[in-house]
């Protein structure tokens, strides 16, 4: 049944409808499994990604911390963590501005799950990394620049 829905979405193709459904998927934590947000992962710019996530106009906030190195020697494995002390965080997304597709990962947190996730991402070059957090129906974000040294000598 799920597969049919996926096919229908692909074929039916109204991008607006797809975006809407995808966004709806993002904002309902606790669902068995939300549909993979293709339009957000395929987006090529930060703006388009935010739009696909329904997070246009996310405000900068100091309530989110990105834990990541200032300088990453190996762009293939960059540890990135996002932590927020805010209560009621519903979703977290990690975006890398200068990657071909900025959205790296998005997490949906059901009630009771702490706003603290950590993963490892690939970075093609030195770039700003953005953490977009959905809390209380609003989107907020913060960013941090991570330098990627290609030569590996730690310059």
């Amino acid at each position, binding site marked *: 049944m799920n597969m049919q829905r996926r096919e229908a979405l692909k074929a039916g193709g109204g991008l607006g409808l797809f975006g809407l459904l995808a966004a709806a998927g993002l904002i309902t*934590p*606790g*669902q*068995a*499994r*939300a549909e*993979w*947000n293709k339009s957000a*992962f395929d987006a090529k710019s930060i703006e388009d990604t935010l739009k696909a996530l329904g997070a246009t106009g996310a405000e900068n906030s100091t309530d989110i911390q990105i834990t990541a190195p200032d300088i990453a020697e190996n762009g*293939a*494995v*960059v*540890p990135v*963590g996002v932590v927020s002390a805010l209560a009621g965080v519903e979703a977290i997304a990690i975006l*890398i501005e200068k*990657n*071909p*597709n900025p*959205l*790296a*990962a*998005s*997490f*949906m*947190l*059901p009630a*009771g*799950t*702490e706003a*603290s*996730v*950590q*993963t*490892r*991402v*690939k*970075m093609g070059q030195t770039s700003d990394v953005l953490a977009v957090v959905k809390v209380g129906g609003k989107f907020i974000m913060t960013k941090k620049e991570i330098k990627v040294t290609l030569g590996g000598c730690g310059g």
Partner: protein
Amino acid sequence: MADPMKIRASAKDGITEVKVLMSHEMETGQRKDSSGNLVPAHFITELSAEHNGKQVLAAQFGTAVSKNPYLAFKFKGGAKGDKLAVSWVDNKGDKRTDEVQIN
């Protein structure tokens, strides 16, 4: 068939910390092999973690997540001996579920 995940789940002071290491190529679809052909994308798209059958995390990955993805998160509740299951699906429909006991 993909290799098993390594999952560590430990409960302390009412909070369970989960660390997952998946075994997956995470091919971006932008890399070329030695003869110059593009290597098709092959990556995990969705991941779900359940504590005693109740979902505690749902994640969607893009191609920018590193090879052999690592993920750590925390949730309230969870006691020693509880079951924690993590499952993922990739863009080729391959899937894997592993389960551990929280300790």
